[in-house]
């Protein structure tokens, strides 16, 4: 189904099932330990051998020699695979570094061997017997040192540099100016299930039960890496223990499980040990950002500039931290620039809201700062500088130039933009009026108390997505699509979509996901999964409705699918009757025209945070949180709210504790476990409130929905940092905001 004109009224608008806060249909399996993750497929792979991955001990250099003798002769060992005996391997187009290193080593903990043994204990012990002689070549590990030599790099969907009007002149002339440097650290996804795969060969056909967000990409990448036909690769990913971008791409667990299984002649399962997750897999790259904002005395932005530096391995990509600055606030004169340094640290890549997450961390502090210079309320400042058209449509410019966008004043409108309403709603709800704009004035016992606010912004992306829908003889509807559920609630919103479209209760819908044998979906990433995958199911359901109508001899345009019946006028026939001669199956997908070129589709929100800062120790604790979001139709308010509170929680982590610490001498992230890389625990998170503004977006899809899961993290950290400033009067511009950055600046104790 081609979606190229704005959606009009359709069966989804009945909202009998869609839009309801239904419990997840997979909930009773997750809560009883019966949902099976990739390492737990005893049901289909009864006797696997165990793989254990060995990571490189240096950041950059070469393996001079391996001593595998002791490992090979260790009890239970079935096979050891290294680059020496793996056969020719290619590299996936989404992988920057090789998934099996050697003899060249590209980063610390790059996989260099997998040991396969009868038991987990034997595989681990044997891997620890491998001796490796390295040539350590050193490398570049310091982003700040690499900034001078950093090169322009294209940001996703746009040029490295963009310019509108004359930024330099306007900034110089602005009566109120802000110019500041900000930094965000490397961050780890730290999802609870480490990457894990069970691999089985049947002749030259490979099946991988693997924890992966993007099944179709994964099939292609596995086939490319192993130099085999795509047709011979099957990926299954029924349950995924969190991803946040770390499982967008095929990682070493899948490739080494496959190679290990081939070498051992046995099914093999392996999971990355937690220590490898931090340096072996991808991470959100650190950034250094410069923001300049010029405003007139009334608070109108006249000039806004945002530059960002990040690093990656040779051939890698930058963090797109400037992305939102092209679209979020008005201002006639603008510039952005993105620079990429070559660093020999592990591979930087997408993590929840790549670009906006780190960009908003900086931008939304800068906005707080200039509002203060203007003696304006930060919400008033944002409302004053709202725009209903995209002020810097760098995508257009990119067609003209690969690196420097030409000045272009765009009239690209947003399909929906309720940023102002988000702030207004939140302001009342949160009690913003009680905030003392003078920092360091509010005390509650031992706590210095402050309020902070920030905008949330993240674009909505349209991607084609297909599904197969079947009416069974017993009247059940079975949906098959390779869409994944990484905790987002895909199972449930897909079931709701099919139930709404086919007029059956949700418990009559069976949803089968995450298998490359099913039609190709949008997959889970970039907050595009919910809208696109359900739109694909919608398309398949429209087709199935037509088949059913034809079978029953009614006009599909006049037929209403409701309460398990197909009704035309007063006549109603049981839906199952259409399948009395056999199940009816329809496959279709959603494909998009250019509505996303005519209208910028984005999601908006406002984050409100109250913090307490211990007056003596400078420990920071979040006391209250509210997010107000405008993100199209909310398909399931319960699961959508969970996405937002989860993102808010991750935002608190980014604000207050998360940092992969770089050892700049040896080139690795030092704190590579969950005690050293702290993420929020229960005690860090208060009750969280989420408000969804009423919105449907007819430009996005027949579902009229947009993404929500990444919107929720954008801006949270800045709202926390702004609240800390309001509490203490100390402005911290280098994340995470920790007590050591405050302690010397707080008033004396006592």
């Amino acid at each position, binding site marked *: 189904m081609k979606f190229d004109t704005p959606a009009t009224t359709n069966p989804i608008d009945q909202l009998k099932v869609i839009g309801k806060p239904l419990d997840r249909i997979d909930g009773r399996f997750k*809560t009883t330990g019966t949902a099976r993750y990739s390492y737990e497929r*005893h049901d289909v792979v009864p006797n696997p051998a165990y793989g254990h991955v060995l990571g490189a001990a240096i950041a950059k250099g070469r393996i001079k020699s391996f001593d595998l003798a002791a490992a090979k002769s260790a009890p239970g060992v079935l096979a050891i695979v290294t680059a020496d005996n793996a056969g020719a391997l290619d590299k996936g187009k989404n992988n920057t570094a090789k998934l099996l290193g050697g003899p060249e080593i590209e980063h610390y903990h790059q996989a260099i061997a997998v040991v396969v043994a009868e038991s987990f204990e034997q595989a681990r012990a044997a891997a620890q*017997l491998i001796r490796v002689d390295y040539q350590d070549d050193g490398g570049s590990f310091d982003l700040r040192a690499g900034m001078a030599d950093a090169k322009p790099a294209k940001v996703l969907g746009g040029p490295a540099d963009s310019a509108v009007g004359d930024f330099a002149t306007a900034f110089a002339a602005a009566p109120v100016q802000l110019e500041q440097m900000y930094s965000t650290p490397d961050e780890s996804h730290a999802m609870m299930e480490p990457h894990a795969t069970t691999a089985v060969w049947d002749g030259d056909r490979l099946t991988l039960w693997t924890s992966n967000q993007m099944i179709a990409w994964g099939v292609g990448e596995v086939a490319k890496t192993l130099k085999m036909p795509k047709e011979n690769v099957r990926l299954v990913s*029924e349950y995924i223990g969190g991803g946040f971008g770390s499982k967008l791409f095929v990682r070493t667990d899948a490739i080494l499980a496959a190679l290990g299984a081939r070498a051992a002649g046995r099914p093999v399962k392996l999971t990355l040990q937690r220590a490898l997750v931090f340096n072996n897999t991808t991470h959100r790259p650190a950034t250094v950002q410069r923001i300049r904002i010029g405003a007139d005395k009334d608070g109108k932005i006249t000039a806004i500039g945002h530059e960002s530096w990040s690093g990656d391995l040779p051939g890698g990509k930058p963090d797109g931290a400037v992305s939102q600055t092209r679209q979020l606030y008005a201002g006639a004169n603008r510039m952005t620039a993105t620079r990429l340094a070559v660093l020999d640290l592990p591979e930087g890549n997408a993590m929840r809201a790549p670009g906006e997450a780190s960009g908003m961390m900086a931008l939304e502090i800068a906005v707080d700062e200039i509002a203060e210079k203007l003696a304006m309320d930060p919400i008033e400042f944002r409302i004053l500088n709202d725009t209903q058209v995209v002020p810097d449509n760098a995508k257009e410019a990119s067609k003209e130039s690969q690196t420097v966008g030409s000045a272009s004043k765009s009239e690209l409108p947003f399909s929906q933009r309720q940023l102002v309403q988000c702030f207004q709603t939140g302001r009342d709800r949160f009690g913003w009026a009680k905030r003392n704009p003078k920092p360091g004035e509010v005390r509650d016992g031992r706590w210095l108390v402050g309020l902070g606010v920030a905008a949330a912004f993240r674009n909505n992306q349209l991607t084609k997505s297909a599904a197969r829908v079947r009416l069974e003889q017993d009247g059940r509807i079975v949906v098959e699509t390779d869409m994944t559920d990484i905790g987002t609630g895909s199972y449930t919103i897909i079931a709701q979509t099919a139930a709404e479209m086919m007029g059956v209760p949700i418990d009559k819908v069976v949803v089968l996901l995450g298998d490359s044998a099913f039609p190709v979906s949008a997959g889970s990433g970039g907050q595009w999964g919910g809208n696109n995958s359900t739109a694909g199911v919608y398309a398949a359901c429209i087709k199935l409705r037509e088949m059913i109508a034809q079978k029953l001899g009614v006009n599909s345009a006049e037929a209403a699918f409701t309460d398990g019946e197909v009704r035309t006028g007063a006549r109603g026939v049981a839906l199952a009757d259409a399948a009395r001669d056999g199940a009816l199956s329809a496959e279709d997908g959603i494909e998009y025209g250019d509505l996303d070129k005519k209208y910028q589709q984005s999601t908006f929100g406002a984050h409100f945070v109250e913090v307490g800062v211990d007056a003596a120790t400078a420990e920071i604790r979040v006391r209250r949180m509210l997010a107000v979001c405008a993100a199209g139709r909310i398909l399931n308010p319960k699961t959508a709210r969970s996405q937002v509170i989860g993102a808010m929680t991750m935002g608190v982590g980014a604000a207050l504790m998360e940092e992969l610490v770089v050892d700049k001498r040896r080139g690795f992230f030092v704190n590579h476990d969950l005690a050293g890389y702290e993420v929020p625990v229960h005690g860090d998170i208060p009750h969280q409130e989420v408000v969804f503004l009423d919105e449907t977006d007819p430009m996005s899809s027949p579902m009229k929905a947009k993404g929500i899961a990444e919107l929720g993290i954008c801006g949270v950290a800045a709202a926390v940092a702004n609240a800390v400033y309001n509490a203490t009067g100390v402005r911290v511009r280098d994340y995470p905001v920790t007590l050591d950055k405050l302690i010397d600046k707080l008033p004396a104790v006592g």
Partner: protein
Amino acid sequence: MPTFGDLKLSRRDMLMGTAATLALGNAPNTASAQDAGVSGGAVALAAGTPSLAKVSFTVNGAAHDLNLDTRTTLLDALREHLHLTGSKKGCDQGQCGACTVIVEGRRIASCLSLAVMHQGDAITTIEGLGTPDNMHPMQAAFVKHDGYQCGYCTPGQICSAVAMLDEIKAGMPSHVTADLEATPQLTNAELRERMSGNICRCGAYSNIAEAITEVAGSPA
């Protein structure tokens, strides 16, 4: 629904798995296998030779006699030998809480405990609390309040929550208990502190707190 777990299947697999485990692998080091569980007489192992030891315990009421590599953690014994994969391995270092099970009424991190240390113990895992068709009240409350997302930390959260409520009933204090000599109450602060050993990277904390509070029968 064919897509989801099937308890009957897993029980059958469990028996197969146990037999397979006994059959596979290497000749046990006879001396240490015999010595395990009795005092004295240990003999140092030749380098690299695995040591097997017998251990018996009950899991969810069912008795198990296992002959395990002494290196096997309680978590791996449950997951790989008994095929009770509800208990999760998130870090294998006691830093995430996903492996939480209840042993002799107390919650522990099963990844930092050797199976052979549990001779005679009664162990309860998430599978023993309830089933998809007959959920424990805590499991049902997690569903109702959406106290999870990806589901990987969930069994640990639930086992921890069930045992945690018992700890409060038993009067055990916590870091945030204001008066050490008073009987602790299940306040919001108490709940969050006591559950802090169970990390949820999806960030379902606010909902988990509501689920537990509902089961405990007091307002959030």
